[in-house]
């Protein structure tokens, strides 16, 4: 479950039976105060996953070592089960763009991404998980497929995969390919975590709906279906519901988690059978 300030008190009061919580590293880099206090209190009761949104793994001008150092201190302090970041860039020329920007897939960027992941894993002294992006367009500088690129990066760096099923669905719809085929071409044995989220649909142009990875609503039926298909392939994996804007009441989030649990706790035979395929 994602941990949001709006829900700190609900969680501490109800102490819900939840596997783990995930936080964005960049929201907990202050010196003290309420965010770190609540994170510490919740960490005493639950496992934690730390998700970076600002390391800019796909950056052209090297990682911000000062920022990496702050993230590393946070990871050392809270000892999360996992640390993950995005296959994306957000900083260039000392300017933070506050969005996950797309990386073209070619040898040059593969080397960049691998070097940066090595740097992160060396500093954090642990493997990280890399999250697949949500795509809206195809870049001219791309010469290989996203799944090829990810396979190479996972093989070269030993990092794991954070498979965001909503991103898969959004990208497949926007760029016109088959979502399940795409997932099957990924190194699924390396999936350490799964993300689910809701997306917005811009249907202002007839027959050309554009899906936007908005994290502002419930997970769509199509994404639930794709998730079900994924865990037939991977077996049960830690799964997170992301909801970052228009954050609902705690109970609404819990209901989403119950749905994921139902799918994860299917008869083992069905999952085992699927894993053999």
């Amino acid at each position: 479950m994602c941990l949001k300030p709006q829900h700190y008190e609900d969680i501490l009061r109800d102490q819900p039976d939840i596997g783990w919580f995930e936080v964005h590293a960049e929201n907990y880099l202050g010196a003290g105060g309420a965010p770190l206090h609540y994170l510490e209190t919740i960490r005493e009761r639950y496992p934690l996953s730390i998700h970076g949104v600002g390391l800019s793994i796909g950056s052209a001008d090297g990682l911000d070592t000062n920022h990496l150092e702050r993230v590393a201190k946070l990871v050392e302090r809270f000892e999360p089960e996992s640390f993950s970041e995005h296959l994306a860039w957000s900083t260039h020329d000392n300017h933070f763009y506050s969005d996950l920007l797309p990386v073209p897939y070619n040898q040059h960027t593969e080397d960049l991404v691998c070097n940066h992941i090595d740097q992160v894993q060396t500093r954090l002294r642990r493997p990280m998980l890399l999250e697949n992006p949500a795509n809206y367009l195809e870049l001219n500088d791309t010469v290989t497929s996203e799944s090829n690129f990810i396979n190479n990066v996972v093989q070269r760096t030993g990092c794991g995969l954070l498979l965001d099923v909503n991103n898969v669905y959004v990208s497949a719809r926007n760029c016109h390919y088959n979502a399940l085929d795409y997932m099957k071409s990924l190194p699924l044995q390396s999936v350490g975590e799964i993300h689910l989220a809701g997306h917005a649909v811009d249907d202002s142009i007839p027959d050309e709906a554009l899906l936007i990875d908005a994290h502002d609503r419930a997970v769509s039926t199509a994404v639930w279906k794709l998730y079900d298909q994924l865990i037939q392939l991977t077996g049960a994996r830690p799964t997170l519901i992301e909801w970052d804007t228009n954050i609902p009441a705690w109970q609404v989030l819990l209901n989403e988690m119950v749905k994921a649990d139902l799918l994860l706790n299917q008869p083992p035979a069905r999952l085992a059978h699927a894993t053999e395929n």
Partner: protein
Amino acid sequence: MPQKTDFHSRFAQALQDPQINTRPLLKPTGTANQRRRFDVYRNNRAVSLIDNLRSAYPAIFRLVGEDFFNAAARNYIDRHPPTGPVMAEYGGEFGDYMAAMPNTDSVPYLADIASLEWQRLQSYHSANSPVLNINELAKIDSAELVNLRLQRHPAFSAIQSRWPIGSIWTICTSDAESATSPAEVDMQRSESVVVTRPGLEVLTNVIPATGYLFLNALVQGKTIGDAAEPALTEDPTFDTGSHLAGLVALGVFSDINFTTE
């Protein structure tokens, strides 16, 4: 300016300038409306940074309204883009930037309210520290007390304004219908505001002008006795003991400073 040709620079330029043609960056896949697709990134960036400024400056948002706020935020983001990914550290100059914009004459206290909101945000994230307990001072003989210096708490800050900024801020951030109407605030009144965080919650309190003189001298490192002088000059009836107790109760100090000058 030399033209940058690498992918990241070209993409970043297009992100900042909607006039730039994005076609050379994208595959000629035949998909129409590529511009709409690129605009997702432009829009995400603007929305997330504006939202961030909005949560840092809720009173300013109420004072100037959504349209003006968003327009000012867009201009500010262009001129002062964030340099790092920690959003709690972005936007410190926004108040001064807005106050220098045209059409802000009707809200002359804008910069001071923005300072107050920024100080509250810094206080929220500042280092933890115990606050000085009044009982610690009560143990000390009053003759000795006047020679003591006090250590400021890391979450403390103060701002003195020629406008009633504490009252305005309270009205702008209160949801209650019964709150004082802005019209009832005496705009001729200047106010000094203390921001503290003795626990997890940030406190915002208006203190008397003489109290501010005393406080200012204390945090500059003057002894309690010396720090009271400016306030006593202003008001011979200034009650040092009760002002000191009040400031201690707000969480202005973390400890007695035993180091000598």
